[in-house]
């Protein structure tokens, strides 16, 4: 039983983890992209469509990443070159993504999906309990952990990460020292888009291998909240994602146990938990202020 619960937690946590790590990089560069939900759902539909048409899960994943990046590029053009309001543009991205995905996905409703190849690691996967939990996951679960490690190392141990953090902390100073704020941010936004697209692909290819309209169901928004929860530190995102993964599968398991709780209440737990977590984290002003990228959400126009 515990093993089964843990396995569902992993699959529920993985898309949150991937999307949140991507958004963390975007926010570290000083940009707030609220369009994670829109990019994620585009990743889900494109990933499913391409995998369905080509019969290849990997092509689906690649297409989903490309779709997320294309959406994020749209966002980047508006907020970086046209200095549009980041909050409103992020919302626009979400509205557009949900609409577009519905239109593209109409043909795929009810079509059975294909499963991603699970990456069983020989011998180790045979170990009871540890085997199935740690070594019988699909490739994307492993990828999500590699992603976190790469981002954590990259942000704090490499020059690219240093420049990224510098741009997010003070874009004026970064510009004065000769760094291209727009270029750094563009790259970060594209990375965030790629991650959101990948997270979407995980939903439609691995989590529930099918296309359902609005299937992201607010996960993009929860990923945004996770970044705040993690106070912009990659390793804490892992904790947050797994915590939320656990909350979101409660519904599933509580029903199996036949608790007498309305299913709607259980379904609303992830959203209520998000609010609770945001309150707990934000109430600690010292913590949030120290870690928040100082330029988050602020437009940058260089004087020429």
């Amino acid at each position, binding site marked *: 039983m515990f093993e089964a619960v843990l396995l569902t937690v992993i699959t529920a946590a993985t898309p949150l983890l991937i999307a949140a790590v991507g958004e963390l990089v975007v926010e570290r560069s000083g940009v707030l992209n609220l369009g994670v939900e829109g990019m994620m759902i585009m990743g889900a539909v494109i990933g499913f469509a391409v995998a369905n048409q080509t019969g290849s899960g990997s092509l689906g994943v690649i297409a989903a990443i490309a779709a997320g990046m294309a959406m994020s590029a749209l966002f980047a053009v508006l907020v970086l070159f046209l*200095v*549009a309001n980041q909050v409103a543009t992020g919302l626009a*991205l979400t509205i*557009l993504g949900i609409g577009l995905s519905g*239109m593209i996905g*109409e043909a795929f409703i009810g079509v059975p999906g294909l499963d991603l190849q699970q990456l069983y690691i020989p011998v180790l996967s045979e170990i009871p309990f540890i085997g199935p939990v740690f070594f019988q996951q699909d490739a994307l679960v492993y990828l999500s952990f590699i992603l976190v490690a790469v981002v954590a190392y990259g942000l704090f141990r490499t020059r690219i990460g240093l420049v990224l953090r510098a741009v997010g902390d003070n874009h004026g100073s970064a510009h004065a020292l000769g760094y291209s704020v727009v270029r750094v941010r563009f790259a970060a936004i594209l990375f965030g888009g790629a991650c959101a697209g990948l997270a979407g692909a995980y939903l439609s290819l691995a989590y529930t291998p099918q296309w359902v309209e609005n299937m992201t169901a607010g996960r993009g928004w929860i990923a945004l*909240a996770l970044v705040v929860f993690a106070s912009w530190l990659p390793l804490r995102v892992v904790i947050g994602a797994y915590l939320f993964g656990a909350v979101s599968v409660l519904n599933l398991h509580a029903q199996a146990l036949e608790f007498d709780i309305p299913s709607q*209440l259980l379904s609303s737990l992830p959203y209520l938990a998000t609010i609770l977590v945001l309150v707990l984290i*934000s109430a600690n002003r010292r913590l949030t202020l120290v870690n928040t990228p100082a330029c988050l959400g602020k437009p940058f126009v260089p004087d020429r």
Partner: protein
Amino acid sequence: MRLELVKRKEHSQAMALLSPLIAVSLTALFAAIIFSVTGHNPLVGLYKFFIEPLTQQWSLEATIDKATPLILIGCGLAVCYLSNNWNIGAEGQFVVGALFGSGLPVLFPGFENAATLPLMLLFGAIGGALWALIPALLKTRFNTNEILTSLMLVYVAGLLLDYLVRGPWRDPGGYNFPESRIFSDAATLPEVFGGMMSLAAPITIGIAIILAVVLAKTLKGFEIRVMGESPRAGSFAGFSAKGLTLFSFALAGALAGLAGTMEVSGALNQLLPSISPGYGFTAIIVAFLGRLNPIGIIIAGFVLALSYIGGEGVQSAMGVSNEIASVIQGLLLFFVLACDTLILYRIRMVTKHAKSGEASHV
């Protein structure tokens, strides 16, 4: 050669008027492209989408029905956005308002008199305001990001509605369908102007006009605009940022809740598991397209309402997915935001001048 933005010394009044028009034109252009790409005649598509709904009585009435909640919610959101409070949970406030408003006819179906409807509208507004005050209070008390909390509450509100219509509020004589009892006549919003529109429409226009005057002429309106542009200057003026956050959320919630109650009382006449085709989100687009000005929002509300009716139109006539409506809505918001750049910036073409001297480095 490249393009660069040059900040204007002052806001361009001309562009403030032109930018929504440019945005709508660009959206129409892209809509035409989408029609072509999906193998349809773009001109027919545009006609069916944007023009035809205005040519027939029934579709015109339907457009007014759809525009009404959009305008009402959009007005409230405009106050929030003007004062830099990012309430994106109007959809949830709409639903909770509808629940509060429906409490009377659902729980006390025998309470039928002249006070029924006014009380329902009042409760609806209160319900929406209370729901909106949750993120506002969390913001003022704990500094919590109101964007995320207000949105999370949309999902919670939807599940609450779902629970009620499937559970305690289900129509006892309704063959187990997930719906509430039908409202009595006393709880139904009457139609006016010979049945052309529900009473909701004139109420909405009246509220929009009052709000336009408040925003343009009063100290409260001044406070809202100052706080949005420069909170520090607002606090120097003696205005309270927290007070205004609570005020703007409560107002937006009340208007959304009122819209929700009018929707269930007028258009639906009962509670259903889903009572809104995303009015609360579309109203965000309405607010921006209307340049956060109530009069502009009245016009923008009609434009967006057209997209609902037009979407159904192109679906039935041409077999285009009616999701095209949300695609066009999303594109419209993009173009509105892009064109708004022109109000504060000019776009200048720069040709790289020839540099004298040799570049010895880089």
